[in-house]
């Protein structure tokens, strides 16, 4: 009898029940993993892509000529628009994934960037780390558009402090309402072109201040200070540039509290009769088999749209519209950032004495929104300006614009390229989109991916607000370039209908698809990013954001995920979930 019982045990071992299963390993999932394991919670992490191996995967410090194709790809993909992401870039994600399509409704345009790697998009992202402002949490109260958040800046501020303190963010205290001050590391000195831009902005009464970037200007938490090679986007072997993989997940793996399951594509959240999540069903990609992992609670952090997809695909008779979707708002309120860019040639920089201007990967100065109090603008909200320029490492395509503009060949072309090198500055506007009823994602009833999981169909439309904002960006950039005595590269007065504004999704700041709010009738999540209808279900990415201000979402993802994780740990301790 005893033997029989023991054999049965071996045949049907009781599967482990994790305190928390986290789905997705980017900024939100990494934060959940870090905070929960620090608090002694047992966590399993599902990631749809492979494990990251910085020593193997990062191409930091490689010269282009050290690769025979110099970055074009073995089959010259770069020259045919078939390169998914730069050859030298850190593993990050894809615009198209074999066997994992999405669809776009006829007449709409949207591009969906998806990550499939431990660390997600944080392995590569720009690391611009801007706090949302007080008014960003109360947009409806401010101008009658959009929806107020259930939380205020003052409630989020301590979590920004923690996020900045852990990630390491450069900056200076400026006292500007559109750019709230934070818990900053020392700033990094401006490059020559940034000094000129700052002076030009001063003439125009536009602020230009030290950038707020998640790169270490001094060592913290065992991560070395930056060595200023400017290649953060390639991945940083010293982890001086923040990633959730290196700064959060790898250390958590050493605690013994974390089980990482890579190659695991979440299909569905399994609920019991009481409407609580009991397990996550996922496809083990290596074997194409269905597996289940049991949990007391789940943190969905798969990115705004993948998280919405997972909830919408978790339908039961109790939740016929998908899990946590009694409000019908899952997939709705999708936004991306308004993007517009313009370059200028600055003769004052021609022949600039050569020096190493690499610095941190990205801008050392930026322009926060400056027309907050202006009364008669023709569009709501605002944007910030990201600055480019300097002596970048020459890459394939670095001189494509010079070839197109100057044409010709021979010594004359060579001289032009020399003269312009380091004398081109770039301006990228990043502005706020107001959620609209025409922009959302839903399950496409006709299409499944290679794993049999129904895919998303996107609807996307800019409104007049965003188109007018892009026009304002163009005019501002022209004014700054003019003030520097420069020449605008490209059209000075382009026909500005849809032309020029970024294609939806391409700034890779999707948000809003699983928004939070106090009223279960209008929002899937409560103020802790906990589902109103499913108490042990939490969302930690940009999905919960009620608006998408002109401040890149990652810092706020980390701050909110940190807050949610501490709340969840406390609820677990109290036995409430």
């Amino acid at each position, binding site marked *: 009898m005893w033997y029989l019982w023991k054999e049965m045990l071996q045949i049907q071992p009781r599967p482990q029940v994790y305190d928390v299963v986290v789905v997705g390993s980017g900024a939100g999932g990494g934060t959940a993993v870090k905070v929960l394991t620090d608090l002694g919670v047992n966590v399993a992490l599902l990631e749809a892509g492979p494990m990251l191996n910085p020593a193997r995967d990062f191409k930091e410090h490689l010269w282009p000529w050290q690769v025979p194709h110099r970055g074009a790809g073995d089959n010259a993909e770069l020259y045919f628009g078939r390169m998914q992401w730069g050859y030298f870039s850190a593993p990050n994600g894809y615009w198209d994934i074999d066997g994992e399509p999405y669809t776009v409704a006829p007449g709409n345009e949207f591009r969906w960037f998806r990550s499939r790697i431990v660390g997600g998009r944080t392995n590569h992202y720009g690391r611009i780390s801007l706090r949302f402002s007080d008014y960003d949490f109360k947009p409806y109260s401010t101008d009658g558009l959009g929806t107020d958040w259930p939380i205020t800046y003052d409630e989020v501020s301590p979590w920004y402090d923690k996020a900045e303190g852990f990630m390491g963010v450069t900056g200076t205290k400026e006292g500007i309402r559109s750019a709230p001050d934070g818990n900053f590391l020392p700033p990094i000195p401006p490059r020559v072109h940034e000094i000129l831009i700052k002076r030009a902005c001063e003439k125009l009464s536009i602020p230009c201040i030290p950038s707020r970037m998640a790169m270490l200007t001094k060592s913290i938490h065992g991560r070395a200070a930056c060595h200023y090679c400017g290649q953060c986007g390639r991945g940083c072997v010293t982890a001086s540039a923040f990633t959730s993989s290196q700064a959060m997940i790898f250390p958590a793996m050493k605690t013994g509290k974390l089980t990482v399951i890579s190659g695991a594509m979440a299909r569905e959240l399994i609920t019991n009769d009481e409407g609580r999540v009991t397990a996550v069903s996922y496809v083990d990609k290596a074997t194409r088999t269905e597996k289940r992992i049991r949990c007391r609670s789940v943190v969905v952090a798969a990115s705004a749209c993948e998280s919405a997809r997972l909830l919408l695909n978790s339908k039961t008779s109790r939740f016929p519209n998908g899990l946590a979707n009694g409000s019908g708002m899952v997939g709705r309120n999708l936004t991306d950032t308004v993007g517009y860019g313009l370059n200028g040639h600055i003769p004052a920089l021609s022949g600039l004495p050569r020096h190493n201007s690499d610095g941190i990967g990205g801008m050392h100065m930026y322009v926060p929104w400056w027309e907050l109090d202006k009364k008669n603008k023709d569009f709501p909200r605002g944007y910030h300006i990201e600055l480019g320029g300097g002596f970048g490492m020459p890459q394939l395509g670095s001189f494509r614009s010079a070839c197109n503009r100057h044409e010709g060949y021979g010594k004359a072309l060579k001289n032009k390229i020399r003269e312009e090198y380091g004398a081109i500055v770039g301006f990228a506007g990043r502005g706020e989109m107001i959620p609209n009823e025409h922009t959302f994602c839903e399950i496409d009833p006709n299409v499944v991916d290679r794993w049999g999981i129904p895919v998303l169909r996107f609807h996307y439309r800019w409104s007049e607000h965003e188109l007018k904002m892009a026009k304002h960006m163009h005019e501002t950039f022209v004014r700054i370039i003019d003030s*520097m005595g420069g020449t605008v590269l490209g059209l000075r007065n382009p026909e500005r209908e849809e032309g020029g504004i970024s294609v939806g999704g391409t700034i890779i700041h999707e948000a809003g698809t699983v928004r939070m709010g106090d009223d279960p009738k209008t929002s899937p999540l409560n103020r802790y990013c906990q589902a109103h209808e499913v108490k042990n279900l939490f969302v930690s990415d940009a999905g919960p954001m009620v608006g998408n201000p002109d401040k890149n979402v990652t810092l706020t993802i980390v701050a909110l995920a940190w807050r949610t994780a501490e709340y969840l740990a406390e609820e677990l301790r109290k036995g409430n979930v």
Partner: protein
Amino acid sequence: MSEERYDELSRREILRNIGLGLTLTAGGADLLSAQAAQHVHQAVAEQKKSGPYKPKCFTAHEYRTLQKLADLIVPADEKSKGAIEAGAPEFIDLLASNNADLAAIFTGGLAWMDREMERRHKANFVSATPEQQTALLDAIAYRKNDAPEIAPGIRFFAWARNMTVDAFYTSRTGVDDLGYKGNGSMSEFSVPEEAIQYALRRSNLA
């Protein structure tokens, strides 16, 4: 990539480039040594290649034509060597050997250059005089000259120019020509005052 001197990038230089990181971090030392190993391995592999380059995609004649064209697009001048020394023909041949669309663009374009030169001067491109060669390039190097007779030449030349320029400036020769000083390590970031003053003096922003 034979003529680009990979041995310029010595083992010592590679190790120095990434070795500085070793002194900066204790925790990541194992990762860094793996990274170092990868770089050294790659550079040593490059150094082993030697002897004249044998085209993988183009015929001997096509390759000579491509070399001539690359030399005209980015020639050596007082400051630096040119596209041939920077390995542009090898780069284009290598990529064309792995991409049929690219191969067709170049074999078709090079053949067009020969036919056009024969039509004009009864000689193929490489046999034509330097004056005849530059006269043809002066026609196809500018969009404003677009006309049905030379449209294929203009389209092809844009490809040849883009890829030759790409190859030149992604070589050590091209990087040195531009004076790019980075891709290394700095313990602190600073900008030389001389450079700041140079730009301010030339601007109206001083």
